[in-house]
Every structure is written in structure tokens, then in C-alpha cells.
């Protein structure tokens, strides 16, 4: 699975998402959208909005920290 997480360092829900991924041994690429302009614009283009966390799982986008949607998308 190709997984990308768009996050910001002080976002509490981003921390929860990353903890959840760590607990479930899920590997991912993370992109800080407050420091990485390219990633920021990419995320905005893909989602039509500016908020994080955003997780992209093999092209499927989930906005926000939603455990149930994550479990389904990650086959957990």
C-alpha cells in the first residue's frame, strides 16, 4: 500500500493519526504542509481544502482522523 500523510507539527489530530498508524505498524510517507509548499499545494489540489490531517491510501483520500474509515481503508 502506498500511504501518504499530510500533516502539520502542532495539529493534535495529526498526532493521533500518527500514533494510530504506529500502533498498527503502518508505514507511510509524511509531508509537513506548513514547511513544504509543494506538498501543501498538492494536498489542496487533491482535497479542495486546507485542513489536516489528510491521509492518502493508494489514491483514496481520508480527511481528518476517522478511525473507522482508516480501519476499513487499511484492512485492519
Amino acid at each position, binding site marked *: 500500500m502506498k500511504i501518504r500523510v499530510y500533516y502539520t507539527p*502542532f495539529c*493534535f489530530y*495529526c498526532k493521533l493519526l500518527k500514533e494510530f498508524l504506529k500502533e498498527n505498524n503502518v508505514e507511510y510517507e509524511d509531508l509537513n504542509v*506548513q514547511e513544504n509548499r509543494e506538498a501543501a499545494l498538492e494536498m489542496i489540489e487533491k482535497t479542495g481544502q486546507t*485542513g489536516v490531517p489528510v491521509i492518502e491510501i493508494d489514491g483514496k483520500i481520508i480527511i481528518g482522523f476517522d478511525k473507522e474509515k482508516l480501519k476499513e481503508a487499511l484492512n485492519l
Partner: protein
Amino acid sequence: MNEEQLRKISERYAESQGFKLNPDEKVVESIIKGMIDNEENHGFRYCPCRAITGDKEKDRKIICPCFWHKDEIKDTGRCLCGLFVSK
């Protein structure tokens, strides 16, 4: 501006608008720190849970309180970052 000052400003704003700060102290602390960090690094109290494009005109919308916060509180009970919640 320090964390305590920004927290008080945020609290007063919330009260004036009919909502309140998130009772979860961990969330509030993280967001306040994030806003101060953004002010130091980018010059504005950007919402710490939103992407910064670098386009100052576009990024005006994400200065706290952000453009979407009232609708978000109305629709979901909290703004995106969780700083403000409905009473």
C-alpha cells in the same frame, strides 16, 4: 505574545461569539503553541492545522479565527483544529 496571553485572547473571542475553548487541555495547548510558532516563523497566527500556501492573500483565510470556523462549529461542534467548540 506568550501562550497565556494568546489563550486569554482566544477565550475572550470564543465567549463573545457564543462558543468556548475546547475543554481538552491537550488540544488547546497544542493549538496555542502552534499559533505562536506560526507567528514567529511566518509572521501570522495561522491555524496550525491548515496548509500554508505562501500566497499571503490566500493565506489570510487561515489566520485564526479562520474563515471557516463558525460554519465548522455549527456543523460539527468544533472548528477544524479543535480550539473552539460549541457550548
